């Protein structure tokens, strides 16, 4: 078969093969195609496909490394000098120390650990290492290294080790354990990213699966997930600096001491961190900080460019490695309120070499950037076998990135420098030099340094534009010597530059209790005009503790806090709660006259015991009317039975007076009923009043609640609602839910009546689903009847769902289905529910397959079949066709997975899947989703006390409840008091058989597309700020009322937030183009057909920005509700802060089928900071 034969039409052999493996064959006899394929694909080609590994010649690899314009990449060191480098650190003499592991991922039985730390030297200064010393041997998976003046720290599996080399011969002569008790539950999660902080502490990270219990002279320290530790070696004080993320394989300080982290398995790119920060995956936190680049997955290492060798525009850029995508990314951090935004920039290096795995970055003493290339075609061991033969154990490279035609920095003398020379290094433009100088000043000790440091500070020119930076360096030295220079803190706090003021406040966080006049500093910081300075003060207040600290912190509460700031205040109030709670009971105005500050504080605790001060204020009538809805909501959420009864009565009265907040409070009461089993006393007539007076959503809520509260005498009311065909669909469903929750003999009789054959089918369907929940056994005949009558347009899943949580009931329904016929589509949709079920429902599954006439599938491939299929895919797969298949609604790919942050979030983001996962892994994952499950996407299975089982991914867990997200993307709230046991289940939320309807050639196309994603070429998600997630309007199930609005209301009405509009998600292709032809058009009076789209921008800072259309012709554009005049390919708009929605309308004839792309561009001089809101 010709290798160049890609297109189906031009390839007769492939076409012939297709005939054999037509839909039917592929569906019903999955092995048939294998036999057919053997005819065409030689097995040797197929075998090669499975072990297809790139040529390891360094020169060849180098030829495939493409640096950004103006840069070059050279080889600093390579195998056999080193193999499998994981982490690097430069010493003060400019020698590069590398921690390596050939043992990873798992030691062999009987093997003696022999991983090594190497010291590499470039003795002749030609930019290549020419001397290697084995510094330490006998290590087990060392994943972290930091060279300090006093010795070398190495993260080694369960331990953090410290080595000395007193004679400096490059061979360790002394070893001791600094800390032990780090978990090793996953060898790519163990201690990593050792970094020297600016003020004398060392920092290191662990990843999500690690549970560490560390004994220190100050007590035990625990971290049972990902996070960053910080240690002061001379006192052994150890604490957790920040929490969360999945694989936070990057951490670095900027010039002002702000820290940034990257994540190797999350999807939010760079994160800005600070003391007490908590990100995604932090256990037990109601609030977390968002990352700065949603949709940017897979990063390892993090370095910030500084120094004279790199061009000006690269200064301060954050560099991190997209090791999956074989490239090195760049981001530009920009101050934004208390935090940052970090728009992505052009890549520093890209490559098509599949083994190029950049994982650690260090700025060198010469000003060049050094890259540890782990070099491996396989990157993972959770999903690819520990002993997979493609796994590389022998190669590894260190690359050096330099700017063309720019001088390197002369290596500074540091180790043997005098104190005064070291002090001079504090003003070096290179962060590396300044860091080394600080480390050695600390090493020289307070006696030798404190006085010269003071003199040096005094000698600085106060009019120098960099004076703040110099003073800050000096302050850090004083902190590292544990002799904080209060005068410098005072000076910096008076600076005009908020960066300096924020850094001065951060310095106080080290040991606030030891600083005289700390509260004066706090008052100044909290009154600061810049939110970052205030945020830094909150970190200090947490460290200080006490009522005074809490009441000071609450002063910065405002309604317009940015996200990072709000998190900072929230965590402060939460951590200080034991200090302020009893004081607030005595003085409910502890946090001032604005009740919202108190609400915020109580929310940070989110426990009933914090509620009392608010209850006191309410009962004494002291709550402002504007705050009442929020106050009642909180009282409803946390109050006991007496309080929630009062809250309900107040709500009733507010509904009668048409005051706002009714729905909000009802929702809070609903949550209390589910989570805490706390319900108000309510009567049927109360319910009647709300059903009359409330708006639609309130009526929906009260219909449900009346059941949950077991209100006497409401059955008739609810039954009438369901029966009335004019009742809104959602209200009718809620009334059924109400009847289900009532769980009385009357309510069951009502459901039985409603499900009777004399009722319209829609009513029967709803009632049967409800009855199935109430009395699953008795409901079987009704459910079977409804199933057999349901057509392809009906959603029959609610009929089946109640039987999936209980194996016995499932078997009973299976029996009931015998001899029954169900519509094939109904059965197919229903069968997808089984994918994530953890109970034994095999009989029911088989019964549904039989009733629906669906042949059972076994899609697993053995090694030979896999090899053959991969050979076939290499020869015939087409990525463009594959993308079209990926986008089919029926496959649910887009619904669950995101590309570049755009798409569903039920499954992992696939932005670089192709660059990281071997093709056989992708095929396996499609055919047997449960075989490999990505970190963070495991299904939690909850067995309730009633014996039923619920399964889904864990969205949130607090002391009272779990929130699961199920297969249908529904959030389910489960009270912990209802749960008997909890397990992590080996099933995938991705249902098996999704790809079953595909022909063999289609599956090959899909696999080709997936394995192209993220590789250099057409299927790499661009780093430009492109709108990827749109919304559109369709005909809303042919709704007459909606069609009337579209036809007759003026077109301007389409941009209003009319609650009757249901906007649906549409996603751009990987190339950033939205296929406009896929969007339905809606008819207006006068026969014109329009398409309507929306997208959102998040405006961090107001101002003017540009929208770049590929082709704006034929569009009308609204920003909010205001039409933008004169839409052109480059259109400029002025935007206010916050989320801004844009609506586009295009006349079908004018725009026909030309695809659409929109990119955001900055306008020079504009203050605007804007991010595209992609996502679901």
């Amino acid at each position, binding site marked *: 078969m010709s290798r160049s034969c890609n297109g189906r039409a031009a390839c007769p052999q492939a076409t012939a093969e297709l005939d054999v493996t037509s839909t039917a064959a592929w569906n019903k006899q999955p092995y048939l195609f294998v036999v057919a394929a053997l005819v065409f694909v030689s097995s040797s080609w197929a075998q090669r496909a499975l072990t297809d590994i790139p040529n390891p010649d360094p020169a060849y690899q180098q030829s495939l490394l493409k640096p950004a314009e103006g840069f070059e990449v050279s080889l600093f060191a390579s195998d056999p000098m080193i193999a499998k480098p994981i982490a690097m650190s430069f010493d003060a003499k400019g020698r590069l120390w590398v921690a390596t592991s050939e043992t990873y991922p*798992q030691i062999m039985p009987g093997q003696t650990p022999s991983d090594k730390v190497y010291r590499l030297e470039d003795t002749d200064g030609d930019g290549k290492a020419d001397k290697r010393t084995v510094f330490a041997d006998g290590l087990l998976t060392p994943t972290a290294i930091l060279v300090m003046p006093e010795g070398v720290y190495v993260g080694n599996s369960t331990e953090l080790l410290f080595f000395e080399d007193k004679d400096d011969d490059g061979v360790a002569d002394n070893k001791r*354990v600094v800390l032990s008790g780090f978990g090793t539950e996953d060898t790519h999660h163990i201690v990593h990213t050792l970094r020297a902080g600016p003020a004398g502490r060392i920092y290191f990270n662990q990843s999500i699966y690690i549970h560490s219990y560390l004994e220190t002279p100050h007590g035990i320290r625990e971290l049972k997930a990902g996070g960053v530790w910080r240690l002061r070696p001379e006192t052994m004080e150890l604490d957790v600096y920040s929490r969360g993320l999945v694989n936070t394989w990057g951490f670095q300080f900027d010039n002002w001491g702000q820290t940034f982290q990257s994540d190797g398995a999350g999807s939010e790119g760079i994160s800005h961190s600070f003391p007490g920060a908590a990100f995604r995956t932090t256990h037990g936190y109601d609030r977390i900080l968002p990352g700065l680049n949603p949709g940017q997955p897979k990063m390892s290492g993090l370095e910030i460019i500084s120094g004279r060798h790199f061009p000006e525009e690269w200064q301060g850029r954050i560099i991190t490695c997209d090791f999956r995508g074989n490239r090195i990314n760049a981001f530009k951090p920009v101050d934004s309120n208390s935090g940052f935004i970090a728009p992505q920039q052009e890549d520093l290096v890209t490559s098509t070499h599949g083994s190029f795995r950049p994982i650690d970055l260090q700025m060198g003493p010469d000003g060049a950037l050094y890259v540890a290339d782990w070099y491996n075609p396989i990157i993972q061991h959770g999903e690819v*076998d520990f002993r997979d033969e493609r796994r590389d154990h022998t190669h590894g490279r260190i690359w050096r990135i330099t700017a063309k035609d720019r001088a390197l920095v002369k290596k500074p003398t540091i180790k043997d420098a005098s104190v005064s020379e070291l002090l001079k290094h504090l003003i070096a433009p290179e962060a590396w030099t300044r860091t080394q100088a600080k480390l050695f000043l600390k090493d020289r000790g307070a006696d030798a340094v404190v006085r010269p440091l003071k003199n040096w500070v005094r000698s600085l020119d106060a009019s120098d534009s960099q004076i703040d930076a110099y003073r800050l360096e000096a302050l850090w030295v004083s902190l590292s010597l544990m002799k904080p220079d209060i005068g410098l803190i005072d000076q910096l706090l008076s600076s005009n530059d908020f960066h300096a003021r924020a850094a001065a406040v951060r310095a106080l966080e080290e040991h606030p209790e030891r600083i005289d006049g700390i509260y004066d500093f706090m008052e100044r910081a909290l009154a600061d005009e810049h939110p970052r300075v205030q945020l830094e003060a909150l970190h200090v207040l947490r460290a200080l503790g006490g009522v005074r600290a809490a009441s000071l912190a609450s002063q910065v509460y405002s309604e317009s806090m940015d996200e990072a700031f709000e998190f900072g205040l929230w965590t402060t109030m939460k951590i200080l709660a034991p200090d302020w709670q009893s004081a607030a009971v005595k003085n409910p105005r502890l946090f001032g006259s604005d009740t919202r500050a108190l609400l915020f504080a109580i929310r940070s605790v989110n426990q009933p015991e914090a509620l009392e001060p608010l209850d006191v204020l309410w009962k004494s009538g002291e709550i402002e009317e504007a705050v009442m809805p929020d106050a009642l909501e909180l009282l409803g959420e946390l109050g006991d039975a007496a309080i929630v009864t009062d809250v309900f009565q107040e709500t009733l009265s507010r509904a009668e007076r048409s005051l706002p907040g009714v729905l909000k409070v009802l929702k809070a009461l609903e949550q209390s009923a589910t989570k805490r089993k706390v319900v108000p006393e309510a009567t049927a007539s109360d319910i009647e009043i709300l059903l009359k007076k409330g708006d639609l959503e309130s009526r929906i809520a009260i219909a449900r609640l009346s059941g949950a509260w077991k209100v006497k005498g409401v059955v008739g009311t609810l039954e009438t609602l369901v029966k009335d065909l004019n009742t809104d669909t959602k209200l009718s469903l809620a009334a059924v839910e109400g009847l289900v929750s009532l769980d009385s003999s009357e309510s069951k009789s009502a459901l039985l009546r409603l499900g009777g054959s004399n009722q319209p089918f829609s009513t029967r369907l709803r009632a049967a689903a409800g009855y199935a929940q109430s009395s699953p056994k008795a409901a079987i005949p009704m459910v079977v009847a409804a199933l057999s009558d349901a057509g392809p347009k009906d959603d029959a899943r609610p009929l089946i769902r109640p039987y999936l949580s209980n194996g016995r009931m499932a078997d009973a329904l299976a029996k009931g289905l015998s001899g029954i016929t169900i519509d094939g589509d109904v059965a197919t949709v229903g069968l997808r529910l089984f994918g994530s079920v953890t109970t034994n429902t095999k009989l029911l599954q088989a019964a549904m397959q039989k009733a629906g006439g669906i042949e059972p599938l076994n899609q697993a491939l053995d090694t030979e079949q896999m090899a053959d299929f991969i050979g076939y895919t290499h020869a015939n797969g087409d990525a463009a066709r594959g993308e079209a298949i990926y986008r089919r609604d029926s496959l649910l790919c887009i619904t669950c997975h995101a590309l570049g942050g755009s798409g569903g979030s039920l499954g992992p983001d696939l932005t670089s899947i192709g660059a990281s996962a071997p093709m056989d892994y992708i095929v396996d994952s499609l055919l047997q989703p449960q075989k490999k499950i990505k970190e963070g996407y495991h299904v939690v299975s909850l067995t309730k006390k009633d014996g039923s089982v619920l399964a889904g991914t864990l969205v949130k867990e607090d002391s009272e409840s779990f929130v699961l997200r199920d297969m249908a993307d529904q959030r389910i709230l489960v009270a912990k008091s209802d749960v008997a046991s909890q397990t992590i289940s080996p099933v995938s939320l991705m249902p098996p058989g999704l790809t079953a309807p595909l022909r063999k050639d289609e599956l090959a196309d899909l696999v080709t597309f997936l394995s192209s994603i993220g590789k250099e070429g057409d299927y790499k998600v661009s780093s430009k700020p492109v709108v990827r997630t749109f919304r559109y309007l369709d005909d809303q199930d042919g709704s007459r009322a909606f069609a009337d609005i579209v036809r007759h209301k003026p077109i301007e009405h389409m941009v209003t937030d009319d609650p009757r509009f249901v906007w649906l998600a549409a996603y751009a292709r990987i190339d950033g183009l939205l296929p406009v032809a896929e969007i339905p058009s809606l008819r207006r009076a006068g026969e014109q057909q329009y398409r309507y789209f929306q997208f959102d921008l998040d405006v961090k800072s107001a101002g003017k920005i540009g929208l770049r259309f590929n082709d704006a012709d034929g569009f009308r554009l609204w920003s909010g509700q205001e039409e933008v005049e004169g839409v052109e390919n480059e259109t400029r708009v002025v935007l206010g802060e916050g989320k801004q929605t844009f609506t586009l309308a295009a006349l079908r004839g004018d725009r026909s089928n030309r695809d659409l792309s929109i990119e955001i561009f900055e306008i020079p001089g504009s203050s605007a900071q804007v991010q595209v809101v992609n996502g679901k």
Partner: protein
Amino acid sequence: MRLKCCLSLRHSFARFFLVASCLVSLGAQVGRSQSSFELKDGDRVAFLGDTFVERAIRYGHIETALTARWPDREIVFRNIGWSGDNVGGRARAFFDPVDAGFENLKNHVQLADPSVVFLSYGAMAAFAGESGLDDFIQSYSKLIETVDTGNRRLVIVSPTPREAMGHPMPDPKAQNQNLKFYTDALRSLASRHDIPFVDLFNTLVPRSVARGTRAITDNGIHLNDYGYAQAAERIVQALAEHSTVKRLSLDKEGRIEEAKGLRASVSKNSKGDLGFELKDERLSLSPLGGDHSQNLELAVANLPRGEYRLEYEGKVIATGSAQKWKRGIQLAWEPSNDQAEQLRAAINRKNEHFFHQWRPQNETYIRGFRKHEQGQNAADLPKFDPFIKAEEMKIAKLKKPEAYKLTLTRVKGGEG
């Protein structure tokens, strides 16, 4: 006997050892009903505890000392210590709520299948001070009841004392006060359950500048190599006190006057050189901790004036005048010292293999919630057994003292 122990150490090799040894005796005496404690042929010993227990496998002193104590008995040791663990097995919970750690702790004990269990917890619990003591003792009782399945013998080992590391490291005083409370409570607990108790808190001697003693910890709380060697001595002496004195003396007639801790025969050749055929009762554990206090002391009273050297396989291992030999010379090195080090190395290798077996990396995939993905790799775990066995066979051989020969020769031209 105890008195003799102190008095018999009449040499000035290390003053601190004298102090320490007397303290050992005191420690062993306090609250002790264990004078009859022994490890029996066929015993399986598990060490269960926190960082103190886990880090012991880096050094091997404790296990080496217990192994050498009963050279003719077959005893298997398994270290199932876990850094940062508490009596509730907290550090062993993996992804489950901390309570599940206790279930895992039970599994770990099951895996070691011991007849004797050394328990060592409390160093971190003591940070809670008096207010945490009741909880601690209650949980410890639960642990004892769980581990003590009737046919198991238990030993409780107290926490170690905290050492002053000097500014800016924290002052150990307050925590030592807490540790004292906890040690006292543990002693009572042990006595209530009739369990032998080893008091390391009161018997280990932290570094003292005044007394010129060496540091026993790395960081004030965790023992270093020397500290573990000291702890090994204290444990063996507290449980199964025995004389570590090894002394051979010849009287004026050249007859064996005393042969303590070894079997000996002496011969004399035509040149007057003395030949010794010796076999130790137990391996002497010197130079554990850098001293050689357990090595042979040889006293020969019948030598004509002159300078003599003691040789082993042609290597001079001690020299001295007739007068010195008459007083007795303790050997800085003796042949079995190497064997003891080989024994310790084999024990360390065995423990390392066992560590990778019972506490493998990548638990998540091997036996945890992702075992459906990579659980096939659990097949590796039984493959560690032959490597553990192989080291245990070496240990069985190395722990038995071998016969050796020494010759004492007059150095020509020697005067004295």
